[in-house]
């Protein structure tokens, strides 16, 4: 099974990278944003497996985006790798700090508290003139280790960067899921008392998950900021978080790949719906989610697993 997994993951990576030279520009930019958002969804999956749903991932997403914008503006940093790294780390620091509070809460209290925290950032950004207020900030044009592409080449370079970052994140998260700390997500969801009495700190396990998912969301936000070329406070608004939760339900928490498949599917459906039904696109999107919940309760990820191996998408 592990070998098949490796082949599937490897061919998906090669196909995604090769697509950069085949697909039209509009599809590449759509896929760039979709994969960047897929990182946020991957972070949600990390928590989802432990029974936690965050309605505030936009906080870290926005942190990552603004870190990139401000670093370019104030320090003149243009290297995409450095920008993305700093975006991820700044979100990780924020999630580590708020984690001391969040790790104590569960269920709806956790969801609402995380939402509240993201709205605090939204409020701060809207009120701060020096950070662009509601207009937001423009993001500098990135360079790649000295390579400074323009227009179509920039588009392809950014897309390839996103693909590489997503592949690395997917591999690391997959390894985490198989580690003791990662695999204990389901025990934590099932019975925290037992986990404690077996000798493991539940709050520390959850805190780790919060930092991992915060960092993933921050990297996603940083990449999205580079791709869009602009950041604004809406990145931290609760509907942004809601959209990530939406995609997570669509994707399912069964596997790492599901996050990216789900996110690509979501962006495609949204673009399609927007083109077909400019007035009713939300309804089409809602119907897709409803059908997914009814017929694929484990998400799109379970469909892939079923096709490939005829086995349930079950966590370790």
């Amino acid at each position, binding site marked *: 099974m592990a070998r098949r997994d490796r082949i599937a993951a490897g061919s998906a990576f090669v196909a995604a990278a090769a697509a950069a030279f085949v697909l039209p520009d509009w599809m590449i930019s759509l896929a760039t944003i979709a994969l960047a958002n897929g990182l946020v969804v991957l972070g949600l999956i990390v928590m989802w497996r432990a029974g936690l749903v965050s309605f505030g991932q936009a906080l870290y997403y926005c942190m990552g985006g603004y870190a990139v914008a401000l670093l370019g503006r104030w320090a003149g940093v243009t290297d995409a790798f450095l920008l993305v790294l700093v975006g991820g780390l700044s979100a990780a620091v924020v999630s580590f700090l708020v984690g001391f509070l969040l790790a104590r809460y569960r269920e709806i209290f956790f969801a609402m508290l995380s939402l509240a925290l993201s709205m605090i950032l939204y409020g701060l950004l809207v009120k701060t003139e020096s950070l662009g207020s509601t207009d937001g900030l423009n993001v500098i044009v990135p360079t790649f280790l000295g390579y400074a592409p323009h227009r179509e080449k920039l588009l392809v370079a950014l897309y390839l960067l996103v693909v590489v970052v997503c592949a690395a994140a997917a591999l690391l998260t997959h390894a985490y899921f198989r*580690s003791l700390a990662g*695999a204990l997500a389901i025990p934590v969801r*099932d019975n925290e008392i*037992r986990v404690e*009495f077996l*000798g493991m700190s539940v709050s520390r396990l959850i805190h780790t998950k919060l930092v991992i998912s915060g960092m993933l969301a921050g990297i996603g936000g940083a990449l999205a900021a580079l791709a869009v070329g602009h950041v604004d406070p809406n990145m931290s608004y609760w509907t942004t978080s809601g959209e990530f939760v939406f995609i997570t339900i669509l994707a399912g928490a069964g596997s790492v790949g599901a996050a990216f498949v789900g996110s690509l599917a979501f962006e495609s459906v949204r673009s399609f719906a927007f083109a077909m039904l400019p007035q009713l696109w939300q309804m089409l999107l809602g119907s897709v989610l409803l059908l997914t919940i009814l017929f694929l309760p484990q998400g799109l990820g379970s469909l892939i697993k079923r096709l490939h191996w005829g086995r349930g998408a079950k966590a370790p």
Partner: protein
Amino acid sequence: MSSLILSVQDLGKRFGSLVAARDITVSVPAQQIVGVIGANGAGKTTFINMITGHVRPTKGTIHFEACDITGLPSRQIKGMGISRSFQVAQIFPSLTVFENMCAAAAIGRAPKTFIGHVRTPMRSRESVTEAETLLELFRIAPYRDSLAGTLPQGIRKLLDIGMALAGSPRLLLLDEPTSGISIEEKFDLMQVVMSALLSRKITVLFVEHDMDIIEGFAERVLAFYDGTVIADGTPATTLADPRVQTLISGPKVRLAAGAGAHV
């Protein structure tokens, strides 16, 4: 007798104005099998909760192998070698029996650092082997791949106790291992549990209401009443104690004679 493994001095616990435990002084030598009896609310579970760090005592000290463990958090106490099972089996219902046991084994042998938890795989060869061994030892290997949430009560209990034994604790506290089990099955269940535990040569403290099981399996009995120990000795002497008979077990002889005395 071998050296003392557990030494409890003048232990007490109040919850507000309620005194749940007072003046408990008990020493347990290594490898002894100790039964704990007492009516509901007598302080048996509070006693176990204090030793395992679930409840902080308000008075007194607890020493485990000459280390003071009073008031330490439960996971630290578990790491030192004290493990417990629960009155209501505490398992992971959405995992299989094997995965339950494997999780317990993996936690038991994981390094105690944060990096260690991320670097240790859940299914290392050692933890899989230990999980398989424990399933055999508790005779629940036939249920290996069933979801734990679907198990009958007796198997749940065995799984719960098996998970407590993962990581080779030196002192095991069983809170009512036979609660929720029918009278016909109780003895067989204790037989499986005790033969498994005896093969590991560990010290056991178990809470039990059934006096036949106490007589059958305990080497020593602690009788709790009103938060303290009122009798401590071999099963024969403790169960013959008039206070124990009046307050806890009931006068066995008269019942057998059919006098029908209710105490």
